[in-house]
């Protein structure tokens, strides 16, 4: 058993989780007689070995940062927002529509307008669930699931029936947006080997900062966190539970909407009919869980996630190993992060430190028999 300071432990445990996740992937590959070394080397070389790969990895991470922040905000208020796919989709269609409808507007007005409108669209979708929760106590898990489907079919209808056919190529695809509404930056793309990297990443970094500042430095953030930790105590302290429920869902949906915006104005430059809920929504959920809900954690988790996703495509073409192994590795990493209590047992924290009480991690405290760390995050 190693003796480490709590701080080192905090870094070591996730690193071991990641390593263990890769190990699980390697084991599965070995069982089905694929070569794990070949797999992982082709994965990393295609995601990070050239400028195009790096650009695509960053591009992949951009929307995930937003959707993960969206999940994390709702989560710290005590809500399980699985409506991220629908909220992102609303943001995507809205921003593309606004840009397509105003081809002659100057970029300084149009781009911010489209971005903000996209965020608002996401916020409205999530806000419905938040309002119902605050007003009637309706369970947000049900409403956000239902809203995913409602948005999915409504977007299809809006694009195919309501949107002017002049804005579309065919029933399933819109025209490509004009440069005055695009997040694409030519020099950035060419610097990264003509990849689809775009200004969205700068927005995402600003988003990470805002998230950190909001949750840690503002009263709103503090209230959201306290309502999540203990709604009754917060109410006793004079905070409005209803107000904070609605705020947190609006913010959550706004960030998720931005995820859709960067996907539309950045990655694809158009909107096309979706048949199932957006991946960036579900992946954002995983990224948030992997990053433990902290700003820096989300950023790092989104990058790791994207290395695996983009690298996995390379792995499939170069080494001929099914892409699915990547998703299995991701799931395994999150599993090990979830059971970090067990991984933590490998280390003994030094007694000298006072910041982290020991009972949290080694479970020997007898006075506190239940741990609420599980259900309330």
């Amino acid at each position: 058993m190693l003796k480490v300071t709590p701080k080192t432990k905090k870094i070591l445990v996730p690193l071991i989780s990641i390593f263990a996740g890769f190990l699980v992937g390697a084991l599965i590959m070995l069982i089905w007689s694929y070569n794990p070394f070949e797999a992982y080397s082709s994965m990393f070389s295609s995601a990070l070995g050239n400028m195009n790969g790096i650009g695509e990895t960053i591009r992949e991470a951009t929307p995930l940062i937003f959707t993960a922040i969206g999940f994390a905000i709702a989560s710290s208020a005590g809500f399980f927002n699985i409506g991220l796919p629908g909220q992102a989709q609303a943001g995507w269609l809205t921003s593309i529509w606004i840009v397509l409808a105003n081809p002659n507007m100057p970029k300084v007005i149009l781009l911010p307008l489209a971005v903000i409108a996209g965020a608002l669209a996401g916020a409205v979708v999530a806000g419905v669930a938040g309002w119902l929760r605050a007003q009637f106590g309706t369970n947000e898990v049900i409403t956000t699931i239902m809203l995913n489907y409602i948005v999915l079919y409504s977007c299809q209808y809006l694009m195919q029936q309501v949107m002017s056919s002049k804005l579309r190529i065919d029933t399933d695809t819109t025209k490509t947006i004009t440069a005055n509404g695009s997040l694409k930056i030519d020099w950035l793309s060419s610097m990264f080997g003509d990849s689809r990297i775009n200004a969205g990443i700068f927005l995402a970094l600003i988003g990470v900062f805002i998230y950190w500042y909001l949750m840690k430095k503002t009263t709103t953030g503090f209230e959201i966190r306290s309502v999540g930790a203990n709604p009754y105590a917060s109410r006793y302290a004079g905070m409005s539970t209803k107000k904070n429920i609605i705020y947190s869902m609006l913010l959550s949906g706004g960030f998720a909407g931005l995820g859709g915006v960067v996907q539309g104005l950045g990655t694809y430059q158009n909107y096309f009919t979706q048949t199932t809920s957006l991946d960036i929504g579900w992946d954002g959920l995983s990224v948030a869980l992997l990053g433990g809900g902290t700003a820096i954690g989300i950023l790092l988790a989104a990058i790791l996630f994207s290395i695996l996703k983009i690298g996995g495509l390379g792995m499939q073409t170069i080494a001929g190993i099914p892409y699915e192994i990547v998703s299995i590795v991701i799931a395994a990493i999150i599993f090990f992060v979830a059971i970090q209590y067990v991984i933590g047992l490998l280390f003994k924290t030094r007694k000298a430190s006072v910041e982290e009480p020991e009972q949290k991690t080694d479970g020997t405290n007898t006075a506190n028999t239940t741990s609420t760390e599980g259900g309330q995050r």
Partner: protein
Amino acid sequence: MNLVGILSLLVSSTFVYSTPLVFTALGGVYSENSGITNVGLEGIMTMGAFSSVVFNLTFASTFGKLTPWLGLLVGGVVGLLFSLLHAVATINFHADHVISGTVLNLMAPPLGVFLVKAIYDKGQTENITQSFGYFSFPGLADIPVIGPILFKNTSAPAWVAIIVSIILWWVLYKTRFGLRLRACGENPQAADTMGVNVYGMRYAGVLISGFLGGIGGAVFAQAISGNFSISTIVGQGFMALAAMIFGKWNPIGAMLASLFFGFAQSISIIGNQLPFFNHIPSVYMQIAPYVITIVILVLFFGKSVAPAADGQNYIKSK
């Protein structure tokens, strides 16, 4: 189409679409009443669907008509084994229940597809040959009016699901096992003090949910989709989760909520065959089930309260 014809079409398609939800939601009820939140139902269903299809394709010639029923058991057992992951993580390793459940959802589809690629060398399986067809109850089907609506050309697994939900209600509320299970979900310390094995009960809850969720997936694969691919189980597990909450963590409630979801879903699917409904633009038919669910929830149910210790880890004192 006469009224009896319309009703029998509605009832049979409601049954077909709700059966997977009924089984899976019942599983959720047992897991959560033992105190373990289970958002991994979707993943469990996926494993059930995958294994039942593989079993069905392999043994259809051996077992003939019996194959889909045995496929249910296979799906259930595989779902149970898969849910062990959730049980160990949450009960022994103090994992966050939502994260652990999400791991099941993340793990199952790629694992299923990876294995399909490894076994069949392609991304999705062939269609199964022995699926759940329509079934008429001998005798009962001849009753006038009720017979054709409820018992003729209907779904046999649906009737099994309804009977199972009644049995599971009885087990949960009228037996010692059920009382103990619920005690672990409401107040594990108190249960432990009274000598109940909390860890054991919670294992039982999660494994039952794995078994039933696996059956749910197997029913879906063998009655509706007919094969297994990455898009076989997309959202049904979450609908089952919603049905469980809608049904207020009660087996009968979960069954009725599932039937309602199945009904709403089948309206949007068979709507164009029905008079009156076929004039409504399809988008309204598509979103109606989900809007109606929210409206009903708001109007009639209001706040739904989970078992008190649901989602909380219990760490036994030494």
